[in-house]
Protein backbone atom coordinates (compact mmCIF):
# COMPACT_ATOMS: atom_id res chain seq x y z
CA UNK A 1 0.00 0.00 0.00
CA UNK A 2 1.36 3.36 -0.94
CA UNK A 3 1.29 6.32 1.37
CA UNK A 4 -1.40 7.86 -0.78
CA UNK A 5 -3.61 4.77 -0.58
CA UNK A 6 -3.10 4.62 3.18
CA UNK A 7 -3.99 8.25 3.78
CA UNK A 8 -6.96 8.25 1.47
CA UNK A 9 -8.14 4.80 2.55
CA UNK A 10 -7.75 3.34 6.04
CA UNK A 11 -6.51 6.51 7.73
CA UNK A 12 -9.42 8.52 6.36
CA UNK A 13 -11.90 5.84 7.44
CA UNK A 14 -10.31 5.70 10.88
CA UNK A 15 -10.32 9.47 11.38
CA UNK A 16 -13.89 9.81 10.15
CA UNK A 17 -15.01 6.99 12.45
CA UNK A 18 -13.29 8.43 15.52
CA UNK A 19 -14.79 11.81 14.70
CA UNK A 20 -18.35 10.61 14.22
CA UNK A 21 -18.41 8.05 17.01
CA UNK A 22 -16.53 10.35 19.39
CA UNK A 23 -18.81 13.29 18.79
CA UNK A 24 -21.96 11.19 19.11
CA UNK A 25 -20.59 9.47 22.21
CA UNK A 26 -19.75 12.72 23.92
CA UNK A 27 -23.12 14.30 23.15
CA UNK A 28 -25.05 11.24 24.31
CA UNK A 29 -22.87 10.85 27.40
CA UNK A 30 -23.56 14.44 28.43
CA UNK A 31 -27.30 13.95 27.91
CA UNK A 32 -27.22 10.67 29.83
CA UNK A 33 -25.99 12.45 32.96
CA UNK A 34 -29.55 13.71 33.20
CA UNK A 35 -31.00 16.47 35.30
CA UNK A 36 -33.77 16.61 37.83
CA UNK A 37 -37.18 17.65 36.60
CA UNK A 38 -37.99 21.30 37.15
CA UNK A 39 -40.99 21.38 39.48
CA UNK A 40 -41.55 25.13 39.36
CA UNK A 41 -44.50 26.53 37.47
CA UNK A 42 -43.50 27.88 34.07
CA UNK A 43 -44.53 31.39 33.14
CA UNK A 44 -43.64 31.03 29.50
CA UNK A 45 -42.53 28.37 27.04
CA UNK A 46 -39.21 26.68 27.68
CA UNK A 47 -39.17 25.25 24.15
CA UNK A 48 -39.51 28.71 22.64
CA UNK A 49 -36.76 29.97 24.94
CA UNK A 50 -34.43 27.15 23.94
CA UNK A 51 -35.10 27.71 20.24
CA UNK A 52 -34.58 31.42 20.58
CA UNK A 53 -31.35 30.95 22.49
CA UNK A 54 -29.89 28.47 20.01
CA UNK A 55 -30.87 30.51 16.99
CA UNK A 56 -30.41 34.06 18.14
CA UNK A 57 -27.89 34.17 20.97
CA UNK A 58 -25.11 34.73 18.43
CA UNK A 59 -26.58 38.10 17.60
CA UNK A 60 -24.95 40.64 19.91
CA UNK A 61 -27.55 42.02 22.28
CA UNK A 62 -27.92 43.74 25.61
CA UNK A 63 -25.94 46.85 24.72
CA UNK A 64 -22.55 45.27 25.37
CA UNK A 65 -21.23 45.25 21.82
CA UNK A 66 -18.66 47.96 22.43
CA UNK A 67 -17.26 45.91 25.29
CA UNK A 68 -16.89 42.71 23.29
CA UNK A 69 -16.28 44.13 19.82
CA UNK A 70 -12.85 42.52 19.45
CA UNK A 71 -14.21 39.03 20.03
CA UNK A 72 -17.36 39.64 18.04
CA UNK A 73 -15.53 40.83 14.92
CA UNK A 74 -12.66 38.37 15.00
CA UNK A 75 -14.96 35.55 16.09
CA UNK A 76 -17.42 36.16 13.28
CA UNK A 77 -14.61 36.61 10.73
CA UNK A 78 -13.00 33.35 11.74
CA UNK A 79 -16.13 31.24 11.95
CA UNK A 80 -17.86 32.55 8.84
CA UNK A 81 -14.60 32.29 6.90
CA UNK A 82 -14.03 28.76 8.13
CA UNK A 83 -17.56 27.59 7.30
CA UNK A 84 -17.32 29.13 3.84
CA UNK A 85 -14.01 27.35 3.26
CA UNK A 86 -15.29 24.09 4.70
CA UNK A 87 -18.51 23.85 2.74
CA UNK A 88 -18.10 26.09 -0.28
CA UNK A 89 -14.46 25.81 -1.36
CA UNK A 90 -14.42 24.15 -4.77
CA UNK A 91 -12.12 21.23 -3.79
CA UNK A 92 -14.25 20.53 -0.71
CA UNK A 93 -17.46 20.54 -2.72
CA UNK A 94 -15.91 18.01 -5.08
CA UNK A 95 -14.59 15.89 -2.21
CA UNK A 96 -17.87 15.88 -0.33
CA UNK A 97 -19.96 15.16 -3.41
CA UNK A 98 -17.64 12.32 -4.39
CA UNK A 99 -17.31 10.75 -0.97
CA UNK A 100 -20.15 11.66 1.32
CA UNK A 101 -23.28 12.98 -0.38
CA UNK A 102 -23.73 12.63 -4.08
CA UNK A 103 -25.63 15.84 -4.62
CA UNK A 104 -23.16 18.58 -5.52
CA UNK A 105 -23.82 22.18 -4.63
CA UNK A 106 -22.28 25.30 -6.11
CA UNK A 107 -18.76 26.17 -5.02
CA UNK A 108 -17.74 29.74 -4.41
CA UNK A 109 -15.66 31.67 -6.94
CA UNK A 110 -11.98 32.32 -6.46
CA UNK A 111 -12.36 35.86 -5.17
CA UNK A 112 -14.82 34.66 -2.51
CA UNK A 113 -12.40 31.92 -1.52
CA UNK A 114 -9.61 34.44 -1.01
CA UNK A 115 -11.81 36.73 1.08
CA UNK A 116 -13.10 33.81 3.15
CA UNK A 117 -9.56 32.57 3.73
CA UNK A 118 -8.33 36.02 4.74
CA UNK A 119 -11.22 36.41 7.15
CA UNK A 120 -10.64 32.98 8.65
CA UNK A 121 -6.90 33.42 9.06
CA UNK A 122 -7.11 36.99 10.33
CA UNK A 123 -9.86 36.03 12.78
CA UNK A 124 -8.03 33.00 14.11
CA UNK A 125 -4.75 34.88 14.45
CA UNK A 126 -6.43 37.82 16.18
CA UNK A 127 -8.20 35.53 18.62
CA UNK A 128 -5.00 33.63 19.30
CA UNK A 129 -2.94 36.79 19.80
CA UNK A 130 -5.54 37.90 22.30
CA UNK A 131 -5.34 34.53 24.02
CA UNK A 132 -1.58 34.97 24.33
CA UNK A 133 -1.61 38.55 25.55
CA UNK A 134 -4.87 39.37 27.33
CA UNK A 135 -4.50 38.66 31.06
CA UNK A 136 -8.11 37.48 31.19
CA UNK A 137 -7.70 34.93 28.42
CA UNK A 138 -4.27 33.85 29.65
CA UNK A 139 -5.81 33.15 33.02
CA UNK A 140 -8.48 30.96 31.46
CA UNK A 141 -6.46 29.16 28.78
CA UNK A 142 -5.08 25.66 29.12
CA UNK A 143 -3.08 23.38 26.80
CA UNK A 144 -6.23 22.23 25.03
CA UNK A 145 -6.93 25.77 23.83
CA UNK A 146 -3.46 26.00 22.30
CA UNK A 147 -3.47 22.55 20.72
CA UNK A 148 -6.92 23.09 19.25
CA UNK A 149 -5.97 26.46 17.79
CA UNK A 150 -2.75 25.16 16.27
CA UNK A 151 -4.37 22.08 14.74
CA UNK A 152 -7.08 24.23 13.21
CA UNK A 153 -4.48 26.67 11.93
CA UNK A 154 -2.38 23.89 10.39
CA UNK A 155 -5.40 22.29 8.74
CA UNK A 156 -6.31 25.65 7.22
CA UNK A 157 -2.74 26.43 6.22
CA UNK A 158 -2.05 23.11 4.53
CA UNK A 159 -5.37 23.39 2.75
CA UNK A 160 -4.43 26.75 1.35
CA UNK A 161 -0.97 25.59 0.34
CA UNK A 162 -2.61 22.81 -1.66
CA UNK A 163 -5.03 25.13 -3.36
CA UNK A 164 -3.44 24.89 -6.79
CA UNK A 165 -4.52 21.23 -6.81
CA UNK A 166 -1.56 20.27 -8.94
CA UNK A 167 0.36 18.09 -6.48
CA UNK A 168 -0.82 14.98 -4.72
CA UNK A 169 1.77 15.47 -1.99
CA UNK A 170 0.33 18.79 -0.93
CA UNK A 171 -3.17 17.37 -0.89
CA UNK A 172 -2.10 14.41 1.23
CA UNK A 173 -0.34 16.77 3.65
CA UNK A 174 -3.61 18.64 4.03
CA UNK A 175 -5.57 15.42 4.47
CA UNK A 176 -3.25 14.21 7.21
CA UNK A 177 -3.50 17.43 9.20
CA UNK A 178 -7.27 17.37 8.85
CA UNK A 179 -7.35 13.76 9.99
CA UNK A 180 -5.31 14.58 13.08
CA UNK A 181 -7.73 17.43 13.74
CA UNK A 182 -10.72 15.10 13.35
CA UNK A 183 -9.26 12.55 15.73
CA UNK A 184 -8.48 15.22 18.31
CA UNK A 185 -11.86 16.92 17.95
CA UNK A 186 -14.20 14.79 20.11
CA UNK A 187 -11.82 14.80 23.08
CA UNK A 188 -11.23 18.50 23.11
CA UNK A 189 -12.86 21.88 23.39
CA UNK A 190 -13.27 21.89 19.62
CA UNK A 191 -16.46 20.09 20.60
CA UNK A 192 -17.95 23.51 21.30
CA UNK A 193 -19.07 23.31 17.68
CA UNK A 194 -21.77 20.99 19.05
CA UNK A 195 -21.93 21.68 22.78
CA UNK A 196 -22.70 25.35 22.14
CA UNK A 197 -26.22 24.32 21.15
CA UNK A 198 -26.58 22.12 24.24
CA UNK A 199 -25.49 24.90 26.58
CA UNK A 200 -27.72 27.43 24.89
CA UNK A 201 -30.61 25.02 24.94
CA UNK A 202 -30.40 24.63 28.72
CA UNK A 203 -30.08 28.35 29.40
CA UNK A 204 -32.78 29.16 26.86
CA UNK A 205 -35.15 26.60 28.34
CA UNK A 206 -34.45 27.55 31.97
CA UNK A 207 -34.93 31.25 31.42
CA UNK A 208 -37.46 30.93 28.64
CA UNK A 209 -39.90 29.48 31.15
CA UNK A 210 -39.27 32.52 33.35
CA UNK A 211 -40.19 34.83 30.51
CA UNK A 212 -36.84 36.26 29.44
CA UNK A 213 -34.06 34.53 27.54
CA UNK A 214 -30.74 36.21 28.32
Amino acid sequence: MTMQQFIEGPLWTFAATVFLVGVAWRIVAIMMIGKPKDLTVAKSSSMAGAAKSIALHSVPHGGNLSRTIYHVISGYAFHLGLFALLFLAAPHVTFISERIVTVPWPAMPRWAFIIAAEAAFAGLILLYLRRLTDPIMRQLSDWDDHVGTWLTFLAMLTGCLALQESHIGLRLFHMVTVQVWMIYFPFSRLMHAFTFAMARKHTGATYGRRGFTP
Partner: protein
Amino acid sequence: MTDVPASDAPAIDVQAAVDKFNALTGSHIASYLDACVHCGQCAQVCHFHEVTKDPRRTPAVKLKPITKVYNRHKAPFSGLRKAFGLAPELTADDLREWEELIFDSCTMCGRCTVVCPMAIDIASVVAISRQAFAAAGLGPADLMQAAETSRDKGSPLGVTTDVLEDRIEWLEDEHEVEIALDKPEADILLLVSSIELMKYPDSIVAMAKLLNHAGANWTLSTKGYESTNFGFLSGKGDIAKIMITRITEAAEAVGAKTVVVPECGHAFGVLRWAGANILGRPLPYEVTHITEYLAGLKRAGKLAFKPMADAITYHDPCQISRRGGATEDARYLLDGFATGFTEMTPTGNYNWCCGGGGGVQAIGRAANVRHEVFRIKMKQVEETGAEAMVSACSNCRLTMDESKAALGWDKQLMSLVEILADHLLVAEK
Protein backbone atom coordinates in the same frame (compact mmCIF):
# COMPACT_ATOMS: atom_id res chain seq x y z
CA MET B 1 -8.73 13.28 51.22
CA THR B 2 -9.05 15.77 54.04
CA ASP B 3 -5.95 17.88 54.23
CA VAL B 4 -3.98 18.19 57.38
CA PRO B 5 -5.13 21.59 58.61
CA ALA B 6 -2.63 24.37 59.19
CA SER B 7 -2.59 25.42 62.81
CA ASP B 8 -5.10 28.25 62.46
CA ALA B 9 -7.08 27.15 59.40
CA PRO B 10 -10.16 24.96 59.78
CA ALA B 11 -10.06 21.53 58.17
CA ILE B 12 -11.23 21.48 54.57
CA ASP B 13 -13.22 18.42 53.62
CA VAL B 14 -12.23 18.11 49.98
CA GLN B 15 -14.07 14.82 49.52
CA ALA B 16 -17.33 16.38 50.66
CA ALA B 17 -16.88 19.11 48.05
CA VAL B 18 -16.09 16.57 45.34
CA ASP B 19 -19.16 14.53 46.25
CA LYS B 20 -21.37 17.61 46.25
CA PHE B 21 -20.02 18.78 42.90
CA ASN B 22 -20.63 15.34 41.44
CA ALA B 23 -24.11 15.10 42.87
CA LEU B 24 -25.13 18.47 41.49
CA THR B 25 -23.59 18.19 38.02
CA GLY B 26 -26.53 17.51 35.77
CA SER B 27 -26.50 17.43 31.99
CA HIS B 28 -27.14 21.17 31.93
CA ILE B 29 -24.05 21.89 34.01
CA ALA B 30 -22.05 19.37 31.97
CA SER B 31 -23.08 21.16 28.78
CA TYR B 32 -21.95 24.45 30.25
CA LEU B 33 -18.57 23.14 31.36
CA ASP B 34 -17.95 21.43 28.03
CA ALA B 35 -18.95 24.43 25.98
CA CYS B 36 -16.77 27.12 27.59
CA VAL B 37 -14.09 28.15 25.08
CA HIS B 38 -12.19 30.40 27.50
CA CYS B 39 -12.82 33.56 25.52
CA GLY B 40 -13.18 35.76 28.59
CA GLN B 41 -15.89 38.00 27.20
CA CYS B 42 -17.82 37.47 30.43
CA ALA B 43 -15.25 39.61 32.24
CA GLN B 44 -16.13 42.58 30.07
CA VAL B 45 -19.63 42.85 31.54
CA CYS B 46 -19.07 41.66 35.13
CA HIS B 47 -19.31 44.53 37.60
CA PHE B 48 -16.62 43.01 39.81
CA HIS B 49 -14.18 42.89 36.92
CA GLU B 50 -15.31 46.28 35.71
CA VAL B 51 -14.29 48.02 38.91
CA THR B 52 -11.21 45.99 39.83
CA LYS B 53 -9.87 45.09 36.38
CA ASP B 54 -8.52 42.02 38.14
CA PRO B 55 -8.29 39.20 35.59
CA ARG B 56 -9.06 36.67 38.28
CA ARG B 57 -12.50 38.20 38.71
CA THR B 58 -13.53 36.78 35.38
CA PRO B 59 -16.82 34.92 35.68
CA ALA B 60 -15.53 31.92 33.72
CA VAL B 61 -12.68 31.51 36.20
CA LYS B 62 -15.34 30.58 38.76
CA LEU B 63 -16.13 27.47 36.70
CA LYS B 64 -12.68 26.01 37.33
CA PRO B 65 -13.18 24.03 40.56
CA ILE B 66 -16.31 22.27 39.33
CA THR B 67 -14.73 21.70 35.91
CA LYS B 68 -11.80 20.01 37.57
CA VAL B 69 -14.10 17.60 39.41
CA TYR B 70 -16.23 17.09 36.31
CA ASN B 71 -13.25 16.27 34.10
CA ARG B 72 -12.00 13.70 36.56
CA HIS B 73 -15.25 12.03 37.53
CA LYS B 74 -18.25 12.67 35.33
CA ALA B 75 -17.18 14.01 31.95
CA PRO B 76 -17.32 11.80 28.87
CA PHE B 77 -13.87 10.22 28.33
CA SER B 78 -12.86 11.10 31.90
CA GLY B 79 -11.31 7.63 32.14
CA LEU B 80 -9.15 8.41 29.14
CA ARG B 81 -8.16 11.76 30.62
CA LYS B 82 -7.25 10.12 33.90
CA ALA B 83 -5.21 7.48 32.08
CA PHE B 84 -3.14 10.22 30.47
CA GLY B 85 -2.81 12.02 33.80
CA LEU B 86 -4.76 14.97 32.45
CA ALA B 87 -7.49 15.03 35.07
CA PRO B 88 -6.04 15.89 38.47
CA GLU B 89 -8.24 15.76 41.58
CA LEU B 90 -9.51 18.91 43.26
CA THR B 91 -7.28 20.01 46.14
CA ALA B 92 -7.80 21.88 49.37
CA ASP B 93 -5.62 24.65 47.94
CA ASP B 94 -7.97 25.01 44.97
CA LEU B 95 -10.91 25.42 47.30
CA ARG B 96 -9.11 27.87 49.54
CA GLU B 97 -8.00 29.87 46.51
CA TRP B 98 -11.46 29.99 44.95
CA GLU B 99 -13.51 30.72 48.08
CA GLU B 100 -13.38 34.46 47.60
CA LEU B 101 -14.34 34.20 43.93
CA ILE B 102 -17.28 31.91 44.56
CA PHE B 103 -18.72 33.88 47.48
CA ASP B 104 -17.47 37.49 47.60
CA SER B 105 -17.06 38.01 43.91
CA CYS B 106 -20.33 36.87 42.41
CA THR B 107 -23.80 38.24 42.98
CA MET B 108 -25.29 35.65 40.59
CA CYS B 109 -26.74 38.53 38.59
CA GLY B 110 -26.40 36.72 35.26
CA ARG B 111 -25.03 39.58 33.14
CA CYS B 112 -22.20 37.33 31.96
CA THR B 113 -24.69 34.94 30.36
CA VAL B 114 -25.83 37.70 28.03
CA VAL B 115 -22.45 38.05 26.32
CA CYS B 116 -21.33 34.42 26.65
CA PRO B 117 -21.32 33.02 23.09
CA MET B 118 -22.47 29.72 24.57
CA ALA B 119 -25.04 31.37 26.89
CA ILE B 120 -23.48 29.60 29.86
CA ASP B 121 -25.42 30.33 33.03
CA ILE B 122 -22.41 30.94 35.24
CA ALA B 123 -24.63 32.20 38.05
CA SER B 124 -26.29 28.80 38.50
CA VAL B 125 -22.89 27.10 38.46
CA VAL B 126 -21.76 29.48 41.20
CA ALA B 127 -24.88 28.59 43.22
CA ILE B 128 -23.96 24.92 42.95
CA SER B 129 -20.33 25.62 43.74
CA ARG B 130 -21.33 27.39 46.93
CA GLN B 131 -23.02 24.19 48.09
CA ALA B 132 -19.81 22.25 47.49
CA PHE B 133 -17.69 24.86 49.22
CA ALA B 134 -20.08 24.96 52.17
CA ALA B 135 -19.95 21.16 52.34
CA ALA B 136 -16.17 21.38 52.54
CA GLY B 137 -16.48 23.79 55.46
CA LEU B 138 -15.66 26.94 53.54
CA GLY B 139 -17.48 30.21 53.06
CA PRO B 140 -17.35 33.69 54.64
CA ALA B 141 -18.15 33.44 58.33
CA ASP B 142 -20.70 36.26 58.30
CA LEU B 143 -22.67 34.78 55.40
CA MET B 144 -22.64 31.35 57.02
CA GLN B 145 -23.75 32.91 60.28
CA ALA B 146 -26.67 34.65 58.56
CA ALA B 147 -27.82 31.27 57.25
CA GLU B 148 -27.55 29.66 60.66
CA THR B 149 -29.35 32.53 62.35
CA SER B 150 -32.16 32.13 59.82
CA ARG B 151 -32.45 28.49 60.78
CA ASP B 152 -32.26 29.10 64.53
CA LYS B 153 -34.19 32.34 64.92
CA GLY B 154 -36.32 32.48 61.81
CA SER B 155 -34.51 35.29 60.08
CA PRO B 156 -30.90 36.22 59.15
CA LEU B 157 -31.08 39.38 61.23
CA GLY B 158 -32.41 37.51 64.23
CA VAL B 159 -36.01 38.62 63.85
CA THR B 160 -37.77 36.05 65.97
CA THR B 161 -41.55 35.74 66.07
CA ASP B 162 -41.55 37.94 69.20
CA VAL B 163 -39.59 40.64 67.46
CA LEU B 164 -41.88 40.32 64.44
CA GLU B 165 -44.99 40.76 66.58
CA ASP B 166 -43.50 43.78 68.37
CA ARG B 167 -42.40 45.45 65.17
CA ILE B 168 -45.75 44.92 63.47
CA GLU B 169 -47.62 46.27 66.48
CA TRP B 170 -45.38 49.31 66.57
CA LEU B 171 -45.82 49.89 62.83
CA GLU B 172 -49.59 49.63 63.10
CA ASP B 173 -49.66 52.23 65.88
CA GLU B 174 -47.10 54.50 64.32
CA HIS B 175 -48.66 54.56 60.86
CA GLU B 176 -52.27 53.92 61.72
CA VAL B 177 -52.54 51.09 59.31
CA GLU B 178 -53.90 47.62 59.75
CA ILE B 179 -51.26 44.96 59.23
CA ALA B 180 -52.82 41.52 59.35
CA LEU B 181 -50.73 39.02 61.32
CA ASP B 182 -51.76 35.41 61.78
CA LYS B 183 -55.26 35.77 60.40
CA PRO B 184 -56.66 32.21 60.59
CA GLU B 185 -57.57 32.23 56.93
CA ALA B 186 -56.43 34.34 54.00
CA ASP B 187 -56.11 34.18 50.21
CA ILE B 188 -52.70 35.74 50.27
CA LEU B 189 -49.71 35.08 52.46
CA LEU B 190 -47.45 38.11 52.45
CA LEU B 191 -43.81 37.60 53.35
CA VAL B 192 -41.39 40.20 54.64
CA SER B 193 -37.69 40.58 54.39
CA SER B 194 -35.90 41.13 57.67
CA ILE B 195 -33.99 43.96 56.00
CA GLU B 196 -37.34 45.72 55.63
CA LEU B 197 -38.41 44.90 59.16
CA MET B 198 -35.25 46.27 60.69
CA LYS B 199 -34.14 48.98 58.25
CA TYR B 200 -36.98 49.91 55.92
CA PRO B 201 -40.21 49.26 57.86
CA ASP B 202 -42.04 51.87 55.76
CA SER B 203 -41.96 49.37 52.96
CA ILE B 204 -44.09 46.95 54.99
CA VAL B 205 -46.49 49.73 55.86
CA ALA B 206 -46.70 50.62 52.19
CA MET B 207 -47.51 47.04 51.15
CA ALA B 208 -50.19 46.84 53.84
CA LYS B 209 -51.76 50.09 52.70
CA LEU B 210 -51.83 49.03 49.05
CA LEU B 211 -53.20 45.55 49.73
CA ASN B 212 -55.81 46.89 52.17
CA HIS B 213 -56.88 49.52 49.69
CA ALA B 214 -57.34 46.93 46.98
CA GLY B 215 -59.45 44.91 49.36
CA ALA B 216 -57.17 41.89 49.32
CA ASN B 217 -57.62 39.15 51.90
CA TRP B 218 -54.07 38.81 53.12
CA THR B 219 -52.02 38.09 56.19
CA LEU B 220 -48.54 37.75 57.59
CA SER B 221 -47.78 34.57 59.48
CA THR B 222 -45.50 33.94 62.42
CA LYS B 223 -45.14 30.38 61.09
CA GLY B 224 -43.36 31.55 58.00
CA TYR B 225 -42.59 35.20 57.41
CA GLU B 226 -38.98 35.48 56.31
CA SER B 227 -38.71 35.74 52.55
CA THR B 228 -34.90 35.84 52.23
CA ASN B 229 -33.21 32.49 51.91
CA PHE B 230 -29.66 32.64 53.21
CA GLY B 231 -29.58 28.85 53.16
CA PHE B 232 -29.57 29.09 49.37
CA LEU B 233 -27.14 32.01 49.23
CA SER B 234 -24.62 30.40 51.57
CA GLY B 235 -24.81 27.02 49.85
CA LYS B 236 -26.45 25.30 52.79
CA GLY B 237 -29.12 23.23 51.10
CA ASP B 238 -30.66 21.96 54.34
CA ILE B 239 -31.28 25.47 55.60
CA ALA B 240 -32.65 26.52 52.21
CA LYS B 241 -35.18 23.72 52.50
CA ILE B 242 -36.11 24.66 56.07
CA MET B 243 -36.86 28.23 55.00
CA ILE B 244 -39.10 27.12 52.16
CA THR B 245 -40.81 24.53 54.31
CA ARG B 246 -41.73 27.22 56.85
CA ILE B 247 -43.31 29.40 54.17
CA THR B 248 -45.14 26.43 52.68
CA GLU B 249 -46.49 25.33 56.05
CA ALA B 250 -47.62 28.84 56.82
CA ALA B 251 -49.39 29.13 53.47
CA GLU B 252 -51.06 25.78 53.95
CA ALA B 253 -52.13 26.73 57.49
CA VAL B 254 -53.98 29.85 56.34
CA GLY B 255 -55.13 28.27 53.10
CA ALA B 256 -53.37 30.85 50.98
CA LYS B 257 -53.39 30.29 47.23
CA THR B 258 -50.86 33.01 46.62
CA VAL B 259 -47.62 33.90 48.35
CA VAL B 260 -46.48 37.45 47.73
CA VAL B 261 -42.75 38.05 48.02
CA PRO B 262 -41.87 41.58 49.14
CA GLU B 263 -39.22 43.84 47.69
CA CYS B 264 -36.35 41.38 47.71
CA GLY B 265 -34.80 40.02 44.55
CA HIS B 266 -33.17 36.83 45.68
CA ALA B 267 -36.08 35.97 47.95
CA PHE B 268 -38.29 36.05 44.88
CA GLY B 269 -35.83 34.23 42.62
CA VAL B 270 -35.27 31.41 45.10
CA LEU B 271 -38.89 30.83 46.07
CA ARG B 272 -40.37 31.34 42.62
CA TRP B 273 -37.78 29.61 40.45
CA ALA B 274 -36.10 27.11 42.78
CA GLY B 275 -38.53 26.70 45.68
CA ALA B 276 -40.37 23.64 44.39
CA ASN B 277 -37.11 21.97 43.41
CA ILE B 278 -35.54 22.60 46.81
CA LEU B 279 -38.68 21.35 48.55
CA GLY B 280 -38.88 18.34 46.25
CA ARG B 281 -42.53 18.83 45.33
CA PRO B 282 -44.59 21.44 43.52
CA LEU B 283 -45.50 24.36 45.73
CA PRO B 284 -49.20 24.29 46.68
CA TYR B 285 -49.49 28.02 45.98
CA GLU B 286 -48.59 30.56 43.38
CA VAL B 287 -45.49 32.65 44.06
CA THR B 288 -45.60 36.22 42.91
CA HIS B 289 -43.45 39.26 43.47
CA ILE B 290 -45.07 42.31 45.01
CA THR B 291 -44.50 44.27 41.78
CA GLU B 292 -46.19 41.54 39.75
CA TYR B 293 -49.05 41.42 42.23
CA LEU B 294 -49.54 45.18 42.36
CA ALA B 295 -49.37 45.37 38.58
CA GLY B 296 -52.17 42.83 38.49
CA LEU B 297 -54.24 44.94 40.90
CA LYS B 298 -53.61 48.05 38.82
CA ARG B 299 -54.55 46.19 35.67
CA ALA B 300 -57.78 45.07 37.38
CA GLY B 301 -58.55 48.69 38.27
CA LYS B 302 -58.19 48.12 41.99
CA LEU B 303 -55.32 50.56 42.38
CA ALA B 304 -54.85 54.03 40.93
CA PHE B 305 -52.17 56.60 41.63
CA LYS B 306 -51.77 60.36 41.73
CA PRO B 307 -49.10 61.50 39.28
CA MET B 308 -45.63 61.99 40.68
CA ALA B 309 -43.41 64.45 38.83
CA ASP B 310 -40.09 63.79 40.63
CA ALA B 311 -37.15 63.05 38.36
CA ILE B 312 -36.59 59.35 39.06
CA THR B 313 -35.04 56.33 37.45
CA TYR B 314 -35.58 52.64 38.17
CA HIS B 315 -32.96 50.10 39.21
CA ASP B 316 -33.90 46.59 38.11
CA PRO B 317 -33.10 43.97 40.74
CA CYS B 318 -31.41 41.21 38.72
CA GLN B 319 -33.44 38.39 40.21
CA ILE B 320 -36.72 40.14 39.53
CA SER B 321 -35.98 41.41 36.05
CA ARG B 322 -33.30 39.54 34.07
CA ARG B 323 -33.61 36.31 36.00
CA GLY B 324 -37.15 36.70 37.34
CA GLY B 325 -39.18 37.59 34.28
CA ALA B 326 -41.00 40.48 35.95
CA THR B 327 -39.22 43.35 34.19
CA GLU B 328 -42.36 44.78 32.66
CA ASP B 329 -44.43 44.81 35.83
CA ALA B 330 -42.41 47.60 37.43
CA ARG B 331 -42.64 49.56 34.16
CA TYR B 332 -46.39 49.04 34.12
CA LEU B 333 -46.68 50.38 37.67
CA LEU B 334 -44.56 53.43 36.83
CA ASP B 335 -46.38 54.05 33.57
CA GLY B 336 -48.76 57.00 33.75
CA PHE B 337 -47.85 57.61 37.37
CA ALA B 338 -44.18 58.57 37.50
CA THR B 339 -44.19 61.35 34.93
CA GLY B 340 -40.53 62.19 35.58
CA PHE B 341 -39.32 58.65 35.02
CA THR B 342 -36.25 58.08 32.83
CA GLU B 343 -34.62 54.74 32.05
CA MET B 344 -30.93 54.17 32.71
CA THR B 345 -28.61 52.77 30.06
CA PRO B 346 -28.46 49.80 30.12
CA THR B 347 -31.66 48.96 31.92
CA GLY B 348 -34.33 46.30 32.35
CA ASN B 349 -33.08 42.85 31.49
CA TYR B 350 -29.57 44.12 30.85
CA ASN B 351 -29.10 46.29 33.96
CA TRP B 352 -25.93 46.52 36.05
CA CYS B 353 -26.17 44.75 39.40
CA CYS B 354 -26.13 46.72 42.67
CA GLY B 355 -23.12 44.67 43.76
CA GLY B 356 -24.69 43.20 46.87
CA GLY B 357 -27.00 40.49 45.60
CA GLY B 358 -26.49 36.77 46.14
CA GLY B 359 -25.60 37.32 49.77
CA VAL B 360 -22.58 39.51 48.98
CA GLN B 361 -24.31 42.26 50.94
CA ALA B 362 -23.84 40.15 54.06
CA ILE B 363 -20.12 39.60 53.47
CA GLY B 364 -18.29 42.28 55.41
CA ARG B 365 -14.93 41.85 53.71
CA ALA B 366 -16.54 42.58 50.31
CA ALA B 367 -17.70 46.05 51.36
CA ASN B 368 -15.00 48.04 49.59
CA VAL B 369 -15.54 46.31 46.28
CA ARG B 370 -19.29 46.84 46.65
CA HIS B 371 -18.72 50.55 47.05
CA GLU B 372 -16.62 50.58 43.89
CA VAL B 373 -19.37 48.73 42.05
CA PHE B 374 -21.83 51.39 43.16
CA ARG B 375 -19.85 53.96 41.17
CA ILE B 376 -21.18 52.29 38.01
CA LYS B 377 -24.70 52.87 39.26
CA MET B 378 -23.94 56.44 40.30
CA LYS B 379 -22.68 57.23 36.83
CA GLN B 380 -25.71 55.59 35.23
CA VAL B 381 -28.13 57.56 37.40
CA GLU B 382 -26.28 60.82 36.86
CA GLU B 383 -26.48 60.33 33.12
CA THR B 384 -30.28 60.20 33.32
CA GLY B 385 -30.44 63.45 35.27
CA ALA B 386 -32.68 61.78 37.83
CA GLU B 387 -32.61 62.94 41.43
CA ALA B 388 -33.69 59.62 42.88
CA MET B 389 -33.26 55.96 42.08
CA VAL B 390 -36.23 53.73 42.80
CA SER B 391 -35.86 49.98 43.29
CA ALA B 392 -38.01 47.03 44.19
CA CYS B 393 -35.44 45.20 46.30
CA SER B 394 -34.56 46.11 49.85
CA ASN B 395 -31.27 44.25 49.51
CA CYS B 396 -30.27 46.37 46.52
CA ARG B 397 -31.41 49.38 48.48
CA LEU B 398 -29.39 48.48 51.56
CA THR B 399 -26.31 47.77 49.48
CA MET B 400 -26.65 51.03 47.66
CA ASP B 401 -27.52 53.00 50.78
CA GLU B 402 -24.30 51.81 52.43
CA SER B 403 -22.26 52.66 49.35
CA LYS B 404 -24.01 55.99 49.00
CA ALA B 405 -23.01 56.84 52.56
CA ALA B 406 -19.46 55.57 52.08
CA LEU B 407 -19.00 57.59 48.90
CA GLY B 408 -21.00 60.64 49.99
CA TRP B 409 -23.40 60.58 47.06
CA ASP B 410 -26.21 63.17 47.06
CA LYS B 411 -29.01 61.40 45.16
CA GLN B 412 -31.99 59.70 46.82
CA LEU B 413 -32.78 55.99 46.98
CA MET B 414 -36.43 55.01 47.10
CA SER B 415 -38.64 51.97 47.27
CA LEU B 416 -41.19 51.36 44.55
CA VAL B 417 -43.94 50.21 46.92
CA GLU B 418 -43.33 53.20 49.16
CA ILE B 419 -43.74 55.78 46.42
CA LEU B 420 -46.79 53.89 45.16
CA ALA B 421 -48.39 53.90 48.62
CA ASP B 422 -47.56 57.60 49.04
CA HIS B 423 -49.37 58.41 45.82
CA LEU B 424 -52.33 56.10 46.22
CA LEU B 425 -55.45 57.67 44.76
CA VAL B 426 -58.15 57.27 47.37
CA ALA B 427 -61.52 57.74 45.70
CA GLU B 428 -64.12 59.70 47.66
CA LYS B 429 -67.01 57.48 48.50
